[in-house]
């Protein structure tokens, strides 16, 4: 999954070795979690987004 910003690589250059090792594993895990969310959840997220956009434009 693409991160929400494009500066990730340079922002991670100052990580310690232990942080870098965990970063590699953690990112893969969390990317997989986000990419493989249950359809019910993704549907609810999509509905929540549309609701937020609609409410935000009314307020």
């Amino acid at each position, binding site marked *: 999954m693409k991160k929400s910003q494009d500066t990730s690589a340079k922002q991670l250059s100052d990580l310690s070795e232990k942080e870098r090792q965990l970063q590699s594993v953690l990112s893969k895990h969390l990317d997989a979690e986000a990419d493989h969310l249950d359809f019910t959840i993704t549907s609810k997220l999509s509905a929540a987004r549309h609701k937020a956009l609609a409410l*935000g434009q009314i307020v």
Partner: protein
Amino acid sequence: MDSFLSSVEKQAYVIAVSACQNSDAALDIVQDSMFSMVKNYAKNPSEQWAPLFFKVLNNRISDHYRKRGFSRFTQWFGRKDKDGDDAIDAVDQLDSAEFGPDALLDAAELSDAMRAALIQLSVKQQQALMLRLWQGYSVKETADIMGISEGSVKTHLSRAVHEMRNLLKGFNPS
């Protein structure tokens, strides 16, 4: 804004559900965060949206725990740090040439171990870990998003990394 929210909503849900361990609460937190973005920040330059969104999200997560009486904040008071960071553990092995990905872990097993380890962290440790190591924000940006000092970010991150390594150490990648 629709496109932006669509690009971050799954990551936001993963962060929220890791923090509160409740799908409905996580969905509410993400929806509230999206609503706040549309209402308050839609006219901001789009390059500001991501850090603003994660700041709102983290505030919503903190609010969730404040309302629930700090149950997960306080569970870590008095918890002792563990020593013995030097042994080769699953985290080390994942990046080593000797234990390359193909020779390594069953992905589902590792995923379970990671999930179990993450929920052992305090909410602040989770936030620092996910913003810094997953979302790639700098220490300064992470501090701004979390509303704490850079020193506190480093402390939370250091403890989170230490704790994760210890928790994954018992994980047998066979």
